[in-house]
């Protein structure tokens, strides 16, 4: 059925077509099945088993791990993670939207350079980027030194090992992922729409509110997804910039797996991430279907 497409394009026989499919899609497909699909199934499955003593899990099927998530301690951990990730998303949007707008209005040959400059930090080592903030923010760090030099303060100010520092780190880490989809949404806007609006007497504010903003909402949602999801699951930022004092979904999953070694509970925690990701992706594709594919 589907091969009829390939048929009309390539004009090859059906059998050669099948052989080619196997060679091209087989190895990668098997790899994906073994190292992606099976692990995801295992995460879901382990969440419903009984923990064994030193890691691992055994029968019988149990809902204890999942229901533990409802305990006040863990509810608070999940809520904290969501709030931190939301804060990071909002700040990334507030910084990223005007930045994407400004890049889209640069002369054409500058735009590529500006975009590469946005993504470049994202491709460098994550730990090093967080470490760079430790260098700036710690009690003996550069900013405290400058503040003391300017006699703003005598005592070092605690700029890290707190929650605002976690949000800062997350924004810094994922801002490029907000700017890129926003930029491509803005770039795709039909300039004629704006011209038509101007000709009809719309002000710059009206133009932005009635054309640019609604038509770039899809891009903003994609960007929000790209910032929110990794922020939620991150354990490095809470550890390095938060001083390990704030438990998040990420730190909880890490501790359950590598320290407490309660794998069913660790899997339950990871499942929370998967469910939230699934819900957002589903909501987003519904939104995309309703308002046309603008992203």
């Amino acid at each position: 059925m589907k091969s009829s497409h390939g048929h009309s394009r390539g004009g090859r026989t059906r059998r050669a077509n099948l052989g080619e499919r196997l060679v091209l899609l087989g190895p990668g497909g098997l790899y994906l099945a073994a190292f992606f699909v099976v692990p995801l199934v295992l995460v879901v499955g382990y969440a419903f088993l009984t923990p064994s003593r030193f890691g691992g899990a055994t029968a019988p099927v149990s809902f204890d791990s999942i229901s533990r998530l409802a305990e006040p301690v863990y509810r608070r951990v999940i809520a904290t993670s969501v709030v931190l990730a939301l804060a990071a998303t909002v700040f990334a949007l507030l910084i990223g939207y005007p930045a994407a707008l400004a890049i889209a209005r640069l002369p054409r040959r500058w735009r590529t350079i500006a975009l590469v400059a946005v993504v470049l930090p994202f491709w460098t080592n994550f730990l090093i980027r967080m470490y760079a903030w430790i260098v700036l923010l710690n009690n003996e760090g550069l900013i405290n030194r400058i503040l003391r030099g300017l006699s703003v303060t005598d005592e070092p100010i605690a700029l890290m090992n707190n929650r605002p520092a976690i949000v800062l780190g997350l924004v810094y880490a994922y801002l490029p992922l907000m700017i890129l989809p926003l930029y491509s949404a803005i770039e795709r806007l039909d300039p004629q729409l704006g011209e038509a609006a101007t000709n009809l007497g719309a002000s710059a504010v009206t133009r932005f509110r009635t054309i640019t903003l609604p038509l770039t909402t899809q891009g903003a949602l994609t960007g929000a997804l790209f910032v929110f999801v990794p922020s939620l699951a991150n354990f490095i930022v809470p550890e390095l910039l938060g001083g390990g004092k704030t438990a998040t979904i990420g730190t909880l999953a890490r501790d359950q797996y590598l320290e407490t070694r309660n794998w069913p509970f660790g899997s339950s925690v990871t499942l929370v991430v998967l469910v939230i990701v699934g819900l957002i992706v589903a909501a987003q594709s519904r939104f995309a279907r309703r308002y046309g594919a603008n992203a």
Partner: protein
Amino acid sequence: MRGPVGAWGRVHLALTYAFLYLPILVLVGLSFNRSGLATTWGGFSTKWYGELRHNADIREGLRNTLIVAVGTTVLATILGTLLAVGIQRHVRNPVIEAVFVAPAVMPDIVLAVGLLLLYTLVDFTLGLTSVLLSHTLFCMAFVTAVVRTRLQHVDSSLEEAARDLGDTAVGVFVRITLPGLAPGIVAAALLSFTLSLDEFVIAFFTNGPTTPTLPQVIYSNVRFGVKPDINALASVLLLVSTVAVLTAQRFARFTDTIERQ
């Protein structure tokens, strides 16, 4: 709408770039500070770079990381290129297409945890091989995405002509398809290499205790504050990533790939 950038827009953009780059530049600057302190400038010196060579942990980490990154790059580039061509020619279902790039966007901790469960279940000893296999998973997804972007710019009429002239499917693939894709493949390989070189979370979960990768060595160091030789190491790694990514960008405008996702 294309009018000149408003003054506020430019100021905002400049501040955004300052935010993205100042921390990194400060770090690189400090790596040349003789005093090794963040707060006192002791004069220009490359002595911390010299110290790197004598640090056994770092040398060991570098060796492990290179083994993993090179193996990952080879494996992911082959698998991802085949997949990209296969998807382009044979997959019309957007959901299946999405599954093939999903490992690239899935939070790393989910992959890390799932892979740890898999290796433990089948009794696969954790070590550099398990890290290599894990890195190949998400690098393969990036390769697929980058090579597919390139495929959309390649003229398929050449392949059809070669086929009409009686070349075999393999012959067409080797003589026509691959050379046309070469820039995309080189870019994808470079990106795989940097991704693997810098990856920490999955290595942290799926590596054995005796073979830490370079990011794992960095992690155990930066948890306990600022260290001057780590400044130097960080600068070297930043340079490697930057060169690799800019070269990849020259070969194939991979930023197009990211925009399209």
